[in-house]
Structure formats: structure tokens, C-alpha cells
């Protein structure tokens, strides 16, 4: 074989390996920590011959502040539904029209046209979940499908309850518990909320994020938490159960957006389409342990998630869930004051 045929063969092989959508290059993802399945990323890299880098953030506010400053070099970010309208309004994201992409047909109907991005013009669902009450049934056997576990703690759990310190989530739960509407600025309701929180706090042991480890080690016997976190806790200790509060619970959804100043827009679009494929969506779920809003992904889901009560909401609890919204800045200011009062 002389050098000419070798070169041609190599060229052909290269062409074949990259396929039709030749998207050689890089893709820089900015996502929550411990959230991105390495297997799915490897598959994406192999399929499109793209080198993917992942950078972590720890909160929506951090991500927003950083991207707002510009020049981050990231192509993709994954903000929560409450923040998506801000990203869109401030012109931080591109209209990639994922609703028209090839795999968009797989988006579950209830997530196909969300309020935070009507018609899916910017975002692709990454994961969604619920926020409820997790209880270790070795410590407490009574009914636990209520925020009362947190706000009106039963004697068995006093001094053993943790609250995840997400201001928005805690305010949502407390407002629901006193019978109000989310994002309310009704002073009568908020006064009840403040009094409720201040009275409840002495029964809490901590306000921490590190629930998986602490519930496992027995430092906490109950906590407010995200469903995927609860699933991991139950797999480690079968006595730990997730409960959907009857007063109403919050739903959240994280979504993949392409940044306005992205350098690798085509790769980012390929990625948006790629994760709407049922098998890939299931791959993401297998890692982050949340549901994915892609129809048909259930048959690829890991066995321990298929019928998990944390992931598949029971029929009777379904109507109680409500997608959490971003509250108005003035309302947020009231909430911050109540929060400071609570934690002072």
C-alpha cells in the first residue's frame, strides 16, 4: 500500500466515523455538580466526535451571575424552571427551537409546552422532580404525607428533623401548609408562615443539603428533600420513605439551554436533540436518579427506578403537585426578610 491509498483509506475511515452530521470539535457544558452521566457523555462524544467538558455549579444564582458576566466559554447550561424566564428575558440564551428538533416528538405531553418556555423554543428537558418529606420509618410510623412533619413535628421526630435550606422551597411548603397560594404577598398569610416557621425551628436539628449521607448515618430521622435524593436514601436503607405532602408539593424541572455567546452552537444543538432520545434520556436518569420527561424512556430505565414511588408519582398524589414559579422581586424581598428572621 503506498501513501496515497493509505491516506484515502484513512480519510474514508474518518468520514465514516464522524457520520453525516460532521460536528467535530468541542462542547462545553455548565451544569449542576454530580448531575451529568459520564456514560451518556461518552456516547455523545463517540457519536459526533466531539470533546465534551463539564464544569459544575452549585446554585441557580451562581450560574446566572456567572453567565451574565459573559465570556464564560460555556455552550450549554441547565437552569431550573424558575430561572429559565430570566435567562430568556435577559437575552442570555439562543432560540434554538428544540420543539422542532427531530427527537422533540419524544417529549412527554405534559412537558411539551411548559409555561416557562411556551412551545419549547429555547429549552430541552433534562430532569424533573418533586420536593416532599422523607421519613425514616424506624423512628416514626405515623402518617407522613404532610408538611406537618417539618412544621408541626411529631414528638418522636423532635430534634431529628432536617430542612434543606432552599428558601424558595421552604417558603412554598410553609405557604401550602397554612393554606396559601405559592408566591403570595398576602401579609395575613405570610404572618402565619413566619409564626409557623419560627415556632417549628426549635424542633429541627439542622438546615443542610447533605441529606443522603446524614439520613443514612442516622443523624437525621426526617428531612425535606428532593425525590431523587430520597430514592438514593431508600436504596441504602429500606426504612427510609419519600412522601408527597397532602397540602400540596412543589414540582421542579431543569432544562438545557444554549447560551447566546456559545462558540459551538451546532454541537450544542446536537446535544439538545441527543438527550431527547429515549435511551439517552434514560441513561441520564440512571445517573442523576430523577425522571426525564421523555416518553418511551421507561423501558431503558434501570430496574430500581421503573416503579420507584419517588420517581413515578402515585395516582392519588399526582393532582397535588404544582410547578414552582419565580416570585416577583418585591415578594422575594419579603421572603428574604422572613428567612433572615427564621435563621437569625
Amino acid at each position, binding site marked *: 500500500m503506498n501513501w496515497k491509498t493509505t491516506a484515502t483509506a484513512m480519510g474514508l475511515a474518518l468520514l465514516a466515523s464522524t457520520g453525516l452530521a460532521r460536528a467535530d470539535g468541542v462542547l462545553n457544558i455548565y451544569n449542576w455538580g454530580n448531575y451529568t452521566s459520564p456514560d451518556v457523555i461518552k456516547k455523545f462524544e463517540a457519536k459526533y466526535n466531539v470533546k465534551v467538558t463539564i464544569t459544575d455549579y452549585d446554585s441557580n*444564582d451562581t450560574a*446566572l451571575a456567572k453567565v451574565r458576566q459573559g465570556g464564560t466559554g460555556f455552550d450549554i447550561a441547565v437552569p431550573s424552571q424558575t*430561572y429559565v424566564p430570566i435567562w430568556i428575558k435577559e437575552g442570555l440564551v439562543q432560540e434554538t427551537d428544540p420543539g422542532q428538533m427531530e427527537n422533540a416528538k419524544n417529549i412527554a405531553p405534559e412537558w411539551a409546552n411548559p409555561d416557562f418556555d411556551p412551545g419549547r423554543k429555547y429549552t430541552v428537558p433534562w430532569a424533573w422532580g418533586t420536593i416532599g418529606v422523607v421519613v425514616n420509618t424506624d423512628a416514626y410510623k405515623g402518617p407522613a404525607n404532610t408538611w406537618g412533619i417539618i412544621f408541626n413535628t411529631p414528638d418522636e421526630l423532635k430534634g431529628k428533623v432536617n430542612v434543606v435550606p432552599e428558601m424558595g422551597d421552604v417558603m412554598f411548603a410553609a405557604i401550602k401548609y397554612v393554606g396559601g397560594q405559592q408566591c403570595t404577598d398576602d401579609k395575613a398569610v405570610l404572618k402565619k408562615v*413566619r409564626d409557623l416557621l419560627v415556632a417549628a425551628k426549635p424542633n429541627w*436539628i*439542622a438546615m443542610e443539603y447533605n441529606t443522603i449521607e446524614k439520613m443514612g448515618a442516622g*443523624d437525621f430521622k426526617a428531612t425535606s428533600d428532593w425525590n431523587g435524593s430520597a430514592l438514593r436514601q431508600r436504596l441504602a436503607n429500606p426504612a427510609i420513605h419519600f412522601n408527597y405532602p397532602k397540602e400540596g408539593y412543589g414540582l421542579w424541572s431543569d432544562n438545557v439551554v444554549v447560551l447566546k455567546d456559545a462558540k459551538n452552537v451546532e454541537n450544542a444543538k446536537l446535544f439538545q436533540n441527543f438527550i431527547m432520545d429515549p435511551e439517552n434520556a434514560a441513561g441520564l436518569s440512571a445517573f442523576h436518579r430523577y425522571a426525564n420527561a421523555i416518553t418511551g424512556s421507561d423501558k431503558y430505565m434501570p430496574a430500581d427506578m421503573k416503579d420507584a414511588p419517588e420517581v413515578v408519582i402515585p395516582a392519588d398524589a399526582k393532582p397535588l403537585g404544582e410547578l414552582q414559579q419565580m416570585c416577583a422581586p418585591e415578594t422575594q424581598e419579603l421572603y428574604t*426578610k422572613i428567612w*433572615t428572621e427564621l435563621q*437569625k
Partner: protein
Amino acid sequence: MASAEEVAKAAERRDVRDRWLLSAPALLVILFAATGPLLIVLVYSFLTPGPYGDVKWQFSSDAWTSVFLERDIFDDTLSLAAAHVTIFWRSIKLAVVTTLATLALGFPTAYFMATRSEKTRDLWLFLITIPFWTNLLIRTFAVLQIIRNEGIVNTILLKLGIVSAPVQILYTDTAILIGMAYVYLPLMVLPIYASMEKLDFRLVEAGYDLYATRFKVLRKIIFPLVKPGVIAGSILVFIPALGAYVTPSVLGGGKNMMLSNLIELQFGQGRNWPLGSALSITVMIIVMVALLAYVRNAGKSGVRHG
């Protein structure tokens, strides 16, 4: 032709210019790396918060007002910001208690080290610096493993039958203090040791010869001579302890805010950057006042060597 006076003047000008040019790098570093960011914080504290974080370039003194005063959201009365005062007070108290605790532990440690033979001294010094090799977060989690309900201390106490249920140490003020004292102890020991090492122990002997009691020797001879080290150590512990974030969060459980948490809240979920900036500057002012108090106090009664 230029007169001698003019030549001298030109040389002087050149000299001045050279001096400026030579010190320019240092000045630039001070300006951009030290003063610059602080000026930004100062400017931000006089702006209006943006609706979702960041700031609007519009003058407002609201942030500074709300550091000290708060409008009750329910009855609209203006009063002293009780929540902020409580949080400030908690942090100051913790910093003071931490300083005293590290002093109580660090002073004898430094004395012990300084009175060893010269060879072994280096070994002790080495041992004191070992914790610095590890990340603060990891050291704090190590303390957590020791004091948690299913941790080392409680397991031993339970096994020995001293207690029947685990003692709740984690998530209490005691836990925070244990963690803080552990983390900041080297910062207290090292400066005291540095002073103590230079101490002429013949003076101690002379004290004993003149029938001073042990306590009197400590109070009248050793302490005055190592006072600069004690002051340096106290400053080194007090300042970072005031802004401590990791240790109180991990060991205290995050139920009660420290100053650092309050500031973080404003830049995170609270979305009030100007208030966060104003609070940061307030902390700096507290530190400055504390430092001035220390220094003046030291200047008044400090014993000079030599």
C-alpha cells in the same frame, strides 16, 4: 549652558521619575489587587439591587439603611434591625470565644515547645504545621466524624457504658467551638512560640531567685515578654474567626446564621447584592475597630525588649 543648579534639578527630577517607575509595579498590584475590588464592593453598596441578582446603576442608600434598620413587613414600623444585630453579635461572640479558647490551649502548647531542647523543638513545630497541609473543609469533616452521633466519641462512650444514648454534640454551639478551636489553634501557637523562643529563660530563673511564685513569674515576666506574640496570635485568630463560614455551617448545622451566611444569602437566594456589599464593609469596619483597640492597648502597656 545649563547652570549647576539646573543640572541638579534635572537629576532630581530624573531621580523622582525613576523612583515612581520602579515602584509602579508594586503600586499597580496594590491598586488593582487589593484596593480595586474593595472599591467595587463599596460602590455596589450604594446601588439599587437588580430584580434577579446583580445591581442597577442607580444610587441608593437603602442597603446601608437596612444594615442597621428594618421596616417590619407586617406593621411597617421602622426599628433597629434586630435580626442583623443578633447575627453580628453571634459572630463576634464566636470569634472572641474562639480567640480565648485557642489562647488557653495555645499558650501552654507554645511554652511546652519553647522549653524543649533545640533539636526536638523543630519536631514539635513540624507537628503543629501538619494540619495546614490539609484543606480546611476536610479537617472540619474529620471533626464531624469524631463528634457525630455514630462517631468515634459516642461509640466509645456507649461501649464503655458511660452513656445509654449518644450525646448530641454535633449541631450544637459546643460543636462549633470545638471545630473552631481545632482549626485556628496553629495560628495562635505559632506567633506565641516565635516570641517564647526568644525569651531569655535566665530572667525566669532570676525571678525564682527573688522568691517570686510560679504565678507571679508567669504574670510579671513571661507574659509581658511574649505579649507581642499573644497579640499577633489573637489578631490572626480573631479576624478569620469572625468571617468563618465552613466550620459553623458544617458543625452547627446551618440553623443559625453567621455573618458569612448572612452575606452569602444576599448574593445568593436573597438577591440583594448592595446589602451584601454593605454588610461586608460593616464587617471590615468591625475588624478595623477591633484592630485599633488591640494596637492602642498594646502600645500603651507593651514592655519593650532590650
